[in-house]
């Protein structure tokens, strides 16, 4: 599965630049595709916007400190800003919040992938919604790890420098 790193124009923030990845045969990047799926449902759309708002706070204040992420094997995920229902929401059965998987390269650079609502407690392997995204995120992360290690791509300030058109696999 070949992919390339894509820019997210509205999430180039003073302390952190956020990127995504686009699989060669797909129309959209992973992050865009996740957002498009969330837009089909009002509640998911609002919760996704809340996560994106969390990203803007990270990128505008402290940068992508490890404290704002949780390791998910080779990948990471953003700490979702909500977990249980608030008083205004209809309770959803088995709601453990929206997950957004990512790759935190540094305080300055984060690559965003996809995710979904987690519907079971505990290990993600038991969640039919999230597990495929978890696996994909780990696939991308392992390749990104290697690409950074071999200096196929690298970071300068807040930018991922990569040869034009380069595809990773």
């Amino acid at each position: 599965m070949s992919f390339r790193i894509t820019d997210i124009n509205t999430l180039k923030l003073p302390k952190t630049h956020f990127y995504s990845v686009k699989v060669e045969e797909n129309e959209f990047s992973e992050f865009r595709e996740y957002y498009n799926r969330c837009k089909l449902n009002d509640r998911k759309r609002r919760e996704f916007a809340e996560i994106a708002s969390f990203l803007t706070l990270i990128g505008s204040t402290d940068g992508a400190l490890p404290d704002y992420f949780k390791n998910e094997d080779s990948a990471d995920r953003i700490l979702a800003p909500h977990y249980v229902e608030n008083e205004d929401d209809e309770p959803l059965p088995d709601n453990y919040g929206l997950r957004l998987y990512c790759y935190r390269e540094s305080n300055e650079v984060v690559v965003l992938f996809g995710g979904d609502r987690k519907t079971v407690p505990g290990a993600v392997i038991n969640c039919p919604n999230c597990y495929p995204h978890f696996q994909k995120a780990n696939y991308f992360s392992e390749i990104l790890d290697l690409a950074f290690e071999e200096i196929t791509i690298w970071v300068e300030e807040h930018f991922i420098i990569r040869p034009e058109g380069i595809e990773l696999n």
Partner: protein
Amino acid sequence: MEDFNDLYDDIDNLPLDSKRYVSNSFVIISTITKRLSHLGMSQKDLADKMGKTEPEVSKWLSGLHNLTLRTISKLEAALNITIISPSVNIVEEVKIENQVQYFGGHPVVADPSEDYSSMVGLMAGKEIKFEKVSSEYAEEYV
């Protein structure tokens, strides 16, 4: 490059309470982790101090828990910090006669002839501005 202006609009159009919810979540995580770092404490140290288990504390700091006011208060006591800053609304229509500053979380009425509004301080690890209140409100604290 993909266009995410629609996402930006969605963020912009979040209800005020949602925006506050996100920023409050961010401030809580940020404040506690910075304080732990400042004190050289681990999450386990905090758990021990609060009589909790490390996984519980880890859950609080991983965004996976909707903290109760009781838990926030216990965290404030354990770390000797203010997580929820006292805030007083500015009522534009009311003539401002006195001003209140906060020191260590306690409001102090200041000299009404001085303008403190440009002063900033640190509370709970973040920059705050002293806020003006009406004399009527301020008297409650005197």
